[in-house]
């Protein structure tokens, strides 16, 4: 049974942790819908746009309003993308650390227990 544990820990267990970490990173990336945000980066915020107008003044005002709406939309999306990159990167770093530490963990546990009895 002990041999079974070690086989799993350094075999299927290790590869499974790598799979789970990559799924978690992809999940966080998807949570922020980064693909959609890039695709709609310059779209007006919540479609708040002025209706088509005929007079020059109204057209100019409409263009300004629409530009403001697009600017707001751009900023919100850029912030969301930055947040997505930051949190995904953080998740990935922790994940990679876990993958690196995984093979060391049993030895670390044993080392700490040995340190109890040895100076």
């Amino acid at each position, binding site marked *: 049974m002990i041999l079974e*544990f070690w086989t799993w820990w350094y075999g299927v267990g290790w590869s499974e942790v790598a799979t789970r970490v990559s799924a978690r990173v992809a999940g966080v990336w998807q949570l922020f*819908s980064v693909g959609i945000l890039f695709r709609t980066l310059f779209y007006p915020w919540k479609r708040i746009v002025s209706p088509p107008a005929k007079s020059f003044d109204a057209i100019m005002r409409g263009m300004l309003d629409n530009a403001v709406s697009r600017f707001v939309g751009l900023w919100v999306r850029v912030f969301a993308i930055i947040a997505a990159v930051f949190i995904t990167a953080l998740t990935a770093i922790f994940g990679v650390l876990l993958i690196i530490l995984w093979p060391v963990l049993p030895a*670390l*546990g044993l*080392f700490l227990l040995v340190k109890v009895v040895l100076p």
Partner: protein
Amino acid sequence: MNGYEIHLDSLRAKRARLGRKIGQGGIGLLWIVGMSLAIGGGYLYFYDNGPSRLFYLAEGFAIWSIISALWARYDLLVSKPSKKAPTFDNHLTTDLLSSLKAPITPKSAWQAATKAKEGRFITNRLMLPVEEIGNMLGDQEADMGGVWSLCEKLREGQTDPLINAGTLATALLLTSESVKANMNRINLQPEDVEEVHGWLNRLLDYFARPKPYFGGVGRDWAMGFTPNLEHFGQNLSSNIQAGRGHFHFLANLGVVDSLAHNLSQGASSVAIVGPTGVGKTELVNALAERLLSGQEKGLEHYQVHSLNASLILSHEQGSKEKLLLTLFSEAIQAGNIILFLDEAQLFFGNGLGAIDLSQVLLPVLQSRRLKLIAAFTPNDFQRLKVANEALANSMAVININEPSAEDTRKVVEDAALTLEARTGLLITYEAIREAYRLSAQYLSDQAFPGKAINLLDQAVPYATNKVLTDDSVQMAIEKTMGVKPGKANAQEADVLLNLENKIHERMINQTQAVNAVAAALRRVRAGVTNPNRPAGSFLFLGPTGVGKTELARSLANAYFGDSTRMIRLDMSEYQRPDDVARLLEDGGDSAQSLIMSIRKQPFSVVLLDEIEKAHPNILNLMLQLLDEGQLTDAGGRAASFKSAIIITTSNAGSADIIARITAGESMSSFERPLIDKLIQSGQFRPELINRFDDVVLFRPLNQAELTQVAKLMIGEVNKNLSHQNITVSLTDEALNKIAAAGYDPQFGARPMRHLIQRTVEDVIATKILRGEASPGSTIVLDVNDMHLPNKEG
């Protein structure tokens, strides 16, 4: 057992058993201990200004606790089969393998299977006595060969290739002859067990599916706000995202493909047309899920909003059109909305409280900017076509048909799980089977699967001990429709078995007719009638006043305890062609509508008096009624007569009957010639006569029988006087005189009631008012006390 070796000492089996011993609780405990030690160790580090022995101890154990939890959770509990090992234990799920104990016999395998949740699913749904069945199973290891072989066959339909405890329990039930015989006694067949196994597998498949991805936080940022739609409608897509989605299994899934295809390939609006209950709303829910998960090109992450008709229709008169335009405009502006008009006829002027918004909707639909789905019943869509062809033609039409019996059962089974989650009840397979059977028999105005699901829903209050059984479903239909689908209890059975005697308490002679109707009612309650025809149908022929109507009334009184449980229509009032419409009226509360009456009281006696006087069109309807056991109202909804006893009466041939009886002939000798004569004379069509279960002749009453009728009527007078504790008694001479005076060659015994009122009741009333009758007294009346007409004098 060739090829079916189970090695319980294999490493996988040992791992499985260790995982079972640790369990989810043990894993949770290991995590808590690990995390607590890690935090505690950290605290010690700072407290001691550096690592101490206690710190090393805490952190060392913390790491090993967490490692153990990870190993148990992701290896021991899942313990995947080894590809190298060829033994049969590699075909079993970890859970099942961990429960098996040597020696593996049908008995020990049953114990293992029913410990696991999949096995309990099978036994709970079928309401099987686990221990009793365990005792019926064999204890020979050799018997397991057939069981494992069947397990292999059963798993062929599974997505998961491993044999679970549910499959093993199913195979054990199906391979034991004694268990099968025992199940047969509780009305469970092998197909029922296989059906529940299929139900379990669909549920396991559903839980094994990966969670769909619905788009993330920024999905709707490029789409418009929809405050009015949120207020006047319901976002079906949000419900799905929140986990309140549709059922797992859907019949007519091809319709979802058609819907998505139509909406993404040009059609801006689609009419889905199908009968009530066929699942139109559920299909729109399924579409909403598919669109939300981005599977449909061109409609990725579109959301479906269902408009709330009652909220919109209750809006101030005159502003409804404006409101609807605002809602349409909001949906168009948002850019990702599909509107759903459930029961769309309410928006097009059909139905109670409906308004006609077709003039508002038509230009919007023709502009093709709004995506809309409207759900109609076939009749409502037909009406829309007649009223506004342009509007109907502006929508692509998708017809939905009632699913097959097999698909219906699957939908109802999955709907039962949703109902269980809502109510906390356990719904048995028998309840589902009964809901299917009874809704097919009694709820003919709705379609499957909706009507069976509705019936299950209505049965919830009748669940006992948190379990919804077939009894609960029978109770629901009994309370809501007045029918009695369950087994007759001892008291009711006694009434049924002695129905003739009960009827004869109110009815003199006419034994042939009494026997025929009593037998029909017994057949209904015993469930041995043809389910597609009325419970019984009779044509009573005979002179007036010989008890034809009285028999129908007596039957209702004897069985239902209430003679008002009879639907009586005088067919002489339906002599014109347009009277057919009156008979089939589907709305309001018309007492002359046969359809309305039978919907209120499906389990009743229907008496159609003087049938020969009805218009020929109504006689044509009778053919349909007697053949199919149902009539269809003006709105296209069927009304079932399958639980009703249809009694039609006619005076046709009564002169012949009187003449032949007076000449001393027996009824049986002239019954057939008389019927043939009625057919030849054109009074009855042969196809109508042949559709009745029985044509019964009523003969005129003789003097002795008339005296008995008089006695019964005096009995009724005494019943009315009982609250005053006064009894009336007639001498034999008085009774005979009343019997003779109360008989009329044209009206039979019908004048007798009026005669008793004038003679007996008037005399008693006078005596009571004069103080000549006190409580406890008996008034004896002789011929001289009554003022009988001279005829008898």
